[in-house]
């Protein structure tokens, strides 16, 4: 996953490949974020032009959805579930522990650029609460100790 800089040629290719399907905006935003790690603000006018939308409309869609981001993420994104089932199994404690041990709040990146932390409302892993997702891998029954072990294990690996 890329970050810091972004490649306008790659983005233009994505837009060109997807723009003719019905309701193309979300698929395009997903493809750009998959490729670049985020949706660079500079890409908004390019997307708008290709889909015959205003920049405001594209910006509105990006900001409506929690998943899309306009700033570079850490090398790995940790999604921590805040929903009821995880709360019933102690996710409040896990949340406090995660923020303290990473030294960041939600929507921030760690200083070494390794991790971003995002809240999420249900990963469908409610039978094994509390749950987190790191990039596209899900972990269940995450105690603070297990959280540390998982973070240690994925640190420095490339997903």
């Amino acid at each position: 996953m890329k970050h810091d800089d972004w490649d306008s040629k790659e983005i233009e290719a994505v837009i060109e490949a997807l723009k003719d399907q019905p309701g193309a905006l979300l698929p395009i935003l997903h493809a750009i974020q998959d490729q670049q790690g985020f949706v660079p603000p500079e890409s908004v006018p390019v997307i708008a032009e290709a889909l015959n939308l205003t920049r405001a409309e594209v910006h509105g869609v990006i900001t409506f959805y929690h998943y899309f981001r306009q700033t570079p993420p850490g090398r790995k994104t940790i999604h921590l579930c805040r929903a009821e089932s995880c709360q019933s199994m102690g996710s409040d404690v896990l949340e406090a522990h995660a923020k303290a041990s990473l030294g960041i709040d939600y929507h921030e990146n760690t200083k070494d650029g390794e991790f971003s932390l995002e809240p999420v409302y249900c990963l469908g892993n409610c039978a094994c609460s509390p749950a987190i997702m790191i990039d596209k891998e899900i972990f269940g029954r995450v105690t603070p100790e297990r959280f540390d072990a998982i973070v240690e294990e994925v640190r420095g690996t490339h997903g």
Partner: protein
Amino acid sequence: MVKVYVPRDSCALSLGAEAVASAVTRIAGQRGLDVSLVRNGSRGLYWLEPMVEVETPQGRIAFGPVTAQDVESLFDQDFLSGGQHALSLGLTEEIPFLKNQERLTFARVGITDPVSLEDYVAHEGYQGLRNALVMAPAQIVDEVTESGLRGRGGAAFPTGIKWRTVLGAEGDQKYIVCNADEGDSGTFSDRMIMEGDPFVLIEGMTIAGLAVGATKGYIYLRFEYPHAERNLNAAIRAAEAGGFLGDNIQGSGKTFHLEVRIGAGAYVCGEETSLLESLEGRRGLVRFKPPLPAIKGLFGKPTVINNVISLASVPIILAKGGSYYKDFGMGRSRGTLPIQLAGNLKQTGLVERAFGVTLREILYDYGGGSQSGRPIKAVQVGGPLGAYVPESQFDTPLDYEAFAALWAVLGHGGVVAFDDSVDMSKMARYGMEFCATESCGKCTPCRIGSTRGVEVIDHIREGKNVSENLKLLRDLSDTMLAGSLCALGGMTPYPVLSALNHFPEDFGAPADNASA
């Protein structure tokens, strides 16, 4: 050759199933044993995952929960021949949690290889579609109507009536949309179907297409379900290659194309009109109704929009007949409900039963009571917009009307248990906070009411003017209930007021405030 099953369900994976699968392959190789590894879905006995099964002449034998470190000793104890081991669970089908179920929609989940079309067909798959292909559209709709199937997403609207409306609507193009934005906490049955038996959903959508004359379908899937996305796409490709999707399905001349679209973390997109806006590439703002999506839905065309479980229940109805399905259940709730046991329970997982089983049976006979060993204080049924149910109401049967009579909702069948360490005023605050985070912003009661709701509950929790603020909270809830455009604002008062009504002491309220 011995068949060994290690689930690739995301819950099993979240507990280390991938490492278990690798260990099985590696050690079998080292020992020169002929093992065929199948990556099945989950049987839904989640407290036993990763649960490994071995096929024997007596039937499948289960071991669990297995870690990668246990695998060596499983081989040492000759588990391939069903040898005894500390993790032995006996014949899978005889485990009481599983044995005492009525699996119709989930008949194949955990049993087959989810992405093998051959396996699906060998386990009675595509019989419903074969029947539907020789029926007139109206006959298919009649069969679904006869079954009594009601929308399993939560609103419980009769599926047959919805389909009949779309069948009768004029349109050069019609669509089938599957709502797979399963955002309710405590629910995972949609995910289990999509990961564990994606063909049943594909078959259900194809039948829906035949029934109403739609040639294109979309599955709107949440981004939080990457494993479901992988299996759905693999199954769609296999169905196309096998002539079950695309042009000229099984030589019938009928057409149906299917595509998966990914959401982006907006809970409100589980509301059907918001979902349609999102599919069209816009902010997920809820639409006014009418017009109904059945008349003017996706891209302005007549659209069937159904939940995953509703659509996945259609193949068995077409295979065995509407009356077969209707024979399960009670009152106006016909058929079965996949109930999801989550939160603070010993035995979490999936229980498919006919409507009518009581909440107490679910919590104790299946769930085994709380995991923490403390008394269960409250149970939230039906997701974040569902009411908290106290112990005094645990004997209520799972039935749409029985729950409605308690001012509660059965919804998508999610059951989240809390032990007595829970502070219900905190859960009420969370209900309002969640609504504020997820509101689409179109209507004022939801957008503003939820933020004011958080503030009022904060004041109550701080002990400020408690009586006046409780009155204000009820007032505000009334406005949200009556004035919101959709269920997000309109049902957030369910968890909030049920918490207050059943547990006034957690709000520092005098006992006589209960159910005021």
